[in-house]
């Protein structure tokens, strides 16, 4: 006898089977990184927890959208799962598959359980919509978290590389590594000037060998720093500019006369010694 069934009924009655089926699909999609980080039991527990929240969600009167309060727990759990994977370096596909593979699992059981073609059809459509929306949440969270991780990493690279070294009396060496964006450039310029004053330096060598790209606005900040340092009685020399960078800079309205540059760190050091009135000589034998 045909009984009106919904996805919710299916999920409560055959939860174990759905779980096993879904878990196998998620496990199959897990890459080596994921397998390192999680045992099968841990992964199954994650899947089970999400399935449990979805079961409650689907038992609501109507489920047209994941914005309804019933789905709050599922969305939150999914966000945590995605964010964790983004941080751990899992692939986007693997993370998306976590949710999308539930579709196939449910489809198999729905076809078995639902007698009437109309019910089957309408339930498939609803279930499909919901899972697509959840997949979008997964994608969005994953992308945002990845972005945040990359920014934090590049910030920490710049923080590590910014400490200036007093390589000689009155000569400061400031090696820059990594990606510099405008807010960091601003902070960097302020720190550099403070350091020049604290160390009473007359020359600061800014080595940019480790910086792949310096855009216009960052170049302008460096120019500003050069001019401000000049008023503090110090010169800024920039070394390690790549040929590509040199080409880009000449296309901007910065003339090479504004920025004091030297090709190599070695040449910069020689110039710095000259500025502070020192000469390197061979020892008497």
């Amino acid at each position: 006898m045909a009984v009106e069934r919904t996805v919710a009924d299916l999920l409560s009655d055959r939860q174990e089977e759905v779980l096993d089926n879904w878990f196998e699909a998620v496990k199959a999609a897990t890459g080596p990184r994921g397998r390192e980080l999680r045992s099968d039991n841990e992964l199954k527990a994650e899947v089970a927890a999400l399935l449990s929240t979805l079961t409650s969600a689907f038992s609501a009167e109507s489920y047209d959208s994941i914005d309804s309060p019933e789905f709050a727990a599922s969305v939150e759990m999914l966000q945590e799962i995605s964010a964790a994977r983004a941080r751990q370096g899992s692939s986007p596909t693997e993370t998306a598959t976590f949710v999308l593979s539930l579709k196939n699992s449910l489809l198999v059981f729905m076809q078995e359980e639902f007698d009437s073609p109309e019910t089957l059809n309408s339930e498939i459509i609803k279930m499909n919509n919901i899972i697509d929306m959840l997949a979008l949440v997964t994608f969005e969270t994953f992308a945002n978290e990845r972005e945040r991780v990359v920014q934090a990493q590049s910030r920490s690279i710049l923080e590590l590389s910014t400490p200036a070294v007093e390589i000689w009396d009155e000569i400061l060496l400031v090696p820059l590594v990594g990606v510099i964006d405008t807010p960091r450039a601003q902070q960097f310029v302020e720190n550099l000037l403070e350091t020049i004053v604290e160390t009473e330096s007359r020359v600061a060598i800014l080595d940019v060998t480790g910086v792949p790209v310096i855009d216009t606005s960052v170049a302008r900040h460096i120019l500003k720093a050069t001019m401000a340092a000049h008023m503090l009685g110090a010169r800024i020399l920039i070394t390690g500019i790549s040929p590509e960078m040199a080409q880009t800079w000449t296309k901007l309205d910065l003339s090479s006369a504004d920025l004091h540059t030297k090709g190599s760190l070695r040449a910069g050091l020689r110039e710095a010694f000259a500025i502070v009135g020192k000469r390197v000589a061979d020892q008497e034998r």
Partner: protein
Amino acid sequence: MGERVIAVDDVDGIIAARQAGREMARIAGFGSIDQTRIITAISELTRNALIHASGGICTLTDDSDDKFIRIAVRVDDHGPGIPDIEQALADGFTTIEGSYGSGLPIVSRLLSTLVIESEPGHTVVSAAMSRHRSDLR
């Protein structure tokens, strides 16, 4: 949020406005360079009012919200007015040094926004510095 009003009738008024500005900017969370920009702008605007209009009223407001930190500076004076506002704001190097509107291009370079309303007898200059909280260290 916070608001302070300072009467600027002499150089002590400029100093008071700057000190108030420094404190408000610091409390709002601006770094030391931004604080210097803000109080330099306050100095420009209040000194302008003092020299050309014999004084004015400086109002400082902390307009910060959860996304931005923001300090607004407003200076009202009852001087002769700026005859040509557009010209006063144009490239700072062409403005006559020491003229009524001469500090304005500087303020526009230091701060985020600048609005000027002027007619003979009443001039209001409103400027503000904002920073996105996520840009702060």
